[in-house]
């Protein structure tokens, strides 16, 4: 056993030694250790290099606030987790941990040169330095900064682990399992409440785990803790969640908890969930999150071996580890004396206690004097020495005149510091509760709550074990729901024996002599922010703490300034000579500590990332080798390659087949809405730009929907299937928003109309049969139904049966050929598709996908809303002005379309483009300009919206929107590209069969 381990005591199991590796070396610890306590037991303080200056850094704290000890824990190639706080990594046998941000080694790191060059890296260094030359940013600065930035390295392999997620409801959620939290849980459970108690540590008890001498209600505090936990665990209405961090507090008492399930296990069971995300809705919340000890700001305060006094005491009493052999305590409060007394009793030499206060008269200082410890009051720290470990400390004394005189140099291998406590108000602040400055505590405390919430114990500014327990009992009792008419409960009270607490605290930088060493005094350890950086920021004119924070990056590291924020605030306040509350406070954000992406993602990965919508004909497309593409949430067949064809060859073949014979296309994804009722026609009149009153039953019309601002929102064919019934189709992606818009007007504006709206998208399978042979194919399947040109002209709709299945048949075309769309109930979709395909094979029927569909419709100049329109196009811009119902006094968007700017001839209008070289296919999104050879900035006339090679026409085609485009037919414009200008001729948007002769047959 190492000489730094105490022979007994603490929460470790000395009978269970564990072997672990740190930077390749093997060491031993015990079950119950954290990686931090195990390293300290082996005499290791140096655990990392600082972010900016690469200064050697040691363990500062014992809890989740640790800013320095960020390490990578590696289980295997895929399970390599960076930036874990060494104080939160529980030791297991075979644990492998690696230090970060150093090269070639932790002991010898060439990055240290930054520390010597630090006067070239002041606050705002990036803003000031990387301004010029502009071209260097992308090639030089950014890659270098990216390489240098950050601490650990993200794993490159996919995360192989499973992450669980659960929802939970409770009457009272207690965050923090220290004395106040346990008391609150007990009181709430006593009142019959459903309680969840969570704590980020492996064991409940909080500060009691490091307080072996304390007694509660006549028994040792740890016995009281154990008994309380047994009582809570035995209550079926209570759930205990250890290793669970409440990382976020969201509106209406919704909290996110992250439970770590297997991180502490040497051999997690295969397939076991690694973490569990709890989303908890609590009727009431009790925050018992404790307080974090405040470090002191003095030159050289970041050497390994300098740590918080309370942390040293936790290592000693909870883990049986003496943090050093010779200690100097620097303190501004009484509580820290207990650390010196405990270490002294354990055999660590306490070389001196330097108290910043002019006098120290409490019970604990008296005990220290009685123990023969050297006590210096009115002290300050001038410097520390030591390279990879602190070796000595230079103390000074502040005279009555405020002047600092050097006092003495004291050799030591650890310095313990305490500047009082910062109540952990992070979650309270996230809940939008107002913080109030307490001059007594020299800290911000919870003020007026915004949620049904209360704080208890140290996070509430209630220090000392007895007071914290009473506060916890009261909070738990008040949070539990009272039955009506019940008398108010008398909360329990605790009787306690424990070391007393004082409210003394120190804020800001310690007084220092003008001759003091020039070493840096760190405020934010994790982001390497010093007193000089803060002073510089205020000198450069930053006044708001929000600006100072962003300029210096203080408090912006992953620890969110848990140890640094208040000192930074105090230094800025002092420099500006204003009271601290006037400087204000920066916001606390979730997560409280870094939370893994896996936990948020849960099962939503891979196939489960998004719901995938498949048509009834999907399996057929798979069996016929289709290549698919996502269209909103749908997956659609893009093309059907045959015999090693690439996409262009397949699409060319599919297009030719449709134009020459016939094609079959799965259009089931079309949005469909059934609009029914006596007011249906009037409803559509008011909504669509078209007029519907005189649309006969059995007829359909191409409808266009604009928003109230006059811009095209959606389009689709609308059929009247009965006097009071319309079958409305929408774009594939637009169905939900069109239905929502319809519902909005129906429910909130036109309540006079009798209309019902029903989404029928997934009830119908839609099979498009297109091409000169389409009618002959279908005739053989529809029995006696007359689908000839006279009985069923273009845009006619008829009910019938196909293969005995009820059918709604549309005579419509999105290809420019004779076309039908067969609508059958979805469950019959595949069977009918197969029957049509079998009947069509002798006619050369070819399945085609969305890519061929796009080419065919572009050849005809049919737009796709969202591709050829972009939310700033009127119907007239898109060449659809003919559709506007001229006689209608109103429709959604009409008034906007009457504004002068909406009818200006210079608006961008849809046109066609022909490249001079027929083989050149323009890039969609490419810009159009007037003349060749221009240099930026150029006047942009518009852009290409659709562009394909048309195998049928033998040349490329494109649709574009061009300013005043319809007046430019025949003009030559230029498409400037990296390879040079491409000349294009402006044409009408219809490239194929402009008279529509092929449709009307």
């Amino acid at each position: 056993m190492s000489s730094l381990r105490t022979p007994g005591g603490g929460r470790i199991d000395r009978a269970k030694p564990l072997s672990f590796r740190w930077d390749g070396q093997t060491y031993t610890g015990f079950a119950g250790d954290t990686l931090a306590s195990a390293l300290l037991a082996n005499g290791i303080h140096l655990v990392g290099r600082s972010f900016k200056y690469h200064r050697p850094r040691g363990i500062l704290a014992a809890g989740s606030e640790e800013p320095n000890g960020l390490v990578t824990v590696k289980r295997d190639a895929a399970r390599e987790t960076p930036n874990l706080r060494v104080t939160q990594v529980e030791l297991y046998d075979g644990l492998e941990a690696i230090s970060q941000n150093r090269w070639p080694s932790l002991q010898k790191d060439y990055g240290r040169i930054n520390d010597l060059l630090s006067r070239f890296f002041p606050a705002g260094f990036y803003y000031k330095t990387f301004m010029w030359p502009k071209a260097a940013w992308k090639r030089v600065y950014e890659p270098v900064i990216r390489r240098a930035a950050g601490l650990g390295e993200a794993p490159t392999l996919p995360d192989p682990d499973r992450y669980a997620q659960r929802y939970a409801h409770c009457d009272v959620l207690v965050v923090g399992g220290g004395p106040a939290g346990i008391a609150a849980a007990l009181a709430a459970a006593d009142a019959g409440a459903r309680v969840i108690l969570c704590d980020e540590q492996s064991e409940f008890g909080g500060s009691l785990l490091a307080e072996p001498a304390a007694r509660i209600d006549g028994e040792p505090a740890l016995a009281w803790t154990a008994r309380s936990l047994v009582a809570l665990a035995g209550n079926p209405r209570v759930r205990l969640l250890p290793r669970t961090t409440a990382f976020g507090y969201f509106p209406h008492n919704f909290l996110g908890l992250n439970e770590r399930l297997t991180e502490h296990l040497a051999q997690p069971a295969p397939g076991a969930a690694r973490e569990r995300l709890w989303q908890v809705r609590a009727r009431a919340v009790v925050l018992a999150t404790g307080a974090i000890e405040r470090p002191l700001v003095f030159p050289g305060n970041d050497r390994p071996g300098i740590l918080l006094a309370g942390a040293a005491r936790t290592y000693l009493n909870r883990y049986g580890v003496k943090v050093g052999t010779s200690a100097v305590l620097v303190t501004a409060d009484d509580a820290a004396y207990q650390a010196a007394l405990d270490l002294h009793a354990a055999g660590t030499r306490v070389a001196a206690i330097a108290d910043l206060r002019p006098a120290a008269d409490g019970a604990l200082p008296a005990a220290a004097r009685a123990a023969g410890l050297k006590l210096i009051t009115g002290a300050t720290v001038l410097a520390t020495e030591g390279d990879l470990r602190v070796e000595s400390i230079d103390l000074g004394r502040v005279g009555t005149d405020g002047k600092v005189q050097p006092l003495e140099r004291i050799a030591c291998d650890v310095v313990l510091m305490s500047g009082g406590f910062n109540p952990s108000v992070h979650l309270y602040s996230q809940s939008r509760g107002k913080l109030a400055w307490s001059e007594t505590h020299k800290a911000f405390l919870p003020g007026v709550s915004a949620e049904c919430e209360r704080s208890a114990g140290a996070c509430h500014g209630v220090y000392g074990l007895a007071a914290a327990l009473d506060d916890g009992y009261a909070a738990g009792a008040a949070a539990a729901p009272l039955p009506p008419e019940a008398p108010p409960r008398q909360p329990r009270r605790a009787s306690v024996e424990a070391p007393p607490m004082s409210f003394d605290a120190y804020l800001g930088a310690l007084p220092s002599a003008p001759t003091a060493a020039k070493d840096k005094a760190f405020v934010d350890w994790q982001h390497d922010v010093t007193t000089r950086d803060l002073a510089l920021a205020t000198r450069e004119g930053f006044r708001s703490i929000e600006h100072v924070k962003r300029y210096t990056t203080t408090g912006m590291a992953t620890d969110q300034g848990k140890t640094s924020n208040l000192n930074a605030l105090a230094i800025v306040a002092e420099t500006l000579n204003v009271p601290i509350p006037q400087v204000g406070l920066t916001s606390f954000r979730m997560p409280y500590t870094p939370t893994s992406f896996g936990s948020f993602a849960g099962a939503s990965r891979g196939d489960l990332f998004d719901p995938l919508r498949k048509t009834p004909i999907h399996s057929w497309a798979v069996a016929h080798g289709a290549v698919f593409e996502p269209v909103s949430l749908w997956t659609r067949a893009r093309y059907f390659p045959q015999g090693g064809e690439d996409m262009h060859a397949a699409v060319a073949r599919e297009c030719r087949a449709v134009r020459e014979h016939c094609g079959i296309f799965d259009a089931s994804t079309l949005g469909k809405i059934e609009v029914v009722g006596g007011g249906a026609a009037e409803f559509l009149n008011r909504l669509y730009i078209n007029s519907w009153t005189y649309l006969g039953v059995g007829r359909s019309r191409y409808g266009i929907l604009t928003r109230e601002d006059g811009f095209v929102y959606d389009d689709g064919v609308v059929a009247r299937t009965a006097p009071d019934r319309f079958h409305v189709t929408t774009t594939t992606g637009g169905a939900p928003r069109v239905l929502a818009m319809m519902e909005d007007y129906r429910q909130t504006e036109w309540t006079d109309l009798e209309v019902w709206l029903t989404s029928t998208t997934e009830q119908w399978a839609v099979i498009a049969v297109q091409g000169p042979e389409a009618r002959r194919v279908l005739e053989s399947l529809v029995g006696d139904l007359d689908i000839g040109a006279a009985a069923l002209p273009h845009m006619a709709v008829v009910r019938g049966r196909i293969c005995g299945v009820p059918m709604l048949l549309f005579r419509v075309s999105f290809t420019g050929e004779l076309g039908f769309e067969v609508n059958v109930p979805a469950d019959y979709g595949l069977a009918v598709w197969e029957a049509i395909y079998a009947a069509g094979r002798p006619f050369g029927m070819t399945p085609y996908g969305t890519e061929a569909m796009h080419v065919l419709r572009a050849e005809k100049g049919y737009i796709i809303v969202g591709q050829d329109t972009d939310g700033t196009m009127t119907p007239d811009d898109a060449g659809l002005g003919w559709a506007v119902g001229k006689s209608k006094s109103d429709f959604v968007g009409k008034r906007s379309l009457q504004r002068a700017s909406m009818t200006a001839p210079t608006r961008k209008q849809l046109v066609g483009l022909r490249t001079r070289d027929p083989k050149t296919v323009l890039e969609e999104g490419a810009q159009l300009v007037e003349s060749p050879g221009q240099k930026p900035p150029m006047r942009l006339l518009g852009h290409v919206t659709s562009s394909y090679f048309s195998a049928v026409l033998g040349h490329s085609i494109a649709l574009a929107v061009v300013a005043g485009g319809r007046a430019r037919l025949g003009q030559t414009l230029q498409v400037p590209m990296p390879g040079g200008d491409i000349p294009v001729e402006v044409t009408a948007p219809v490239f194929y069969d402009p008279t529509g002769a092929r449709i009307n047959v």
Partner: protein
Amino acid sequence: MLVIVCPYCGKRPEIEFSYGGQAHIARPSQPVDLDDQAWAEFLYMRSNTKGLYAERWRHSHGCGRFFNALRDTTTDHFTATYKTGEPQPEAAALRVPATVTP
């Protein structure tokens, strides 16, 4: 995530709802009678209230109904939800949701 009381279905989580902007803005009965200024006022101008705000929600993944709500934009607390067409409740008559103050 907010808890929203649908006047038709009761308390439901926010993910079941979609937001509908400011409430009590009626579409003019004859938009063509408005000049550009008045139309723009209807179409684009919305208040950006700090405090109690009357707004529209739709229980889109529930009953599908639109309704109105009074929400404090500084705290996200709802003080009332009510059916479309009903008058906006008087703010003074509303009970502020109970919070346990420390």
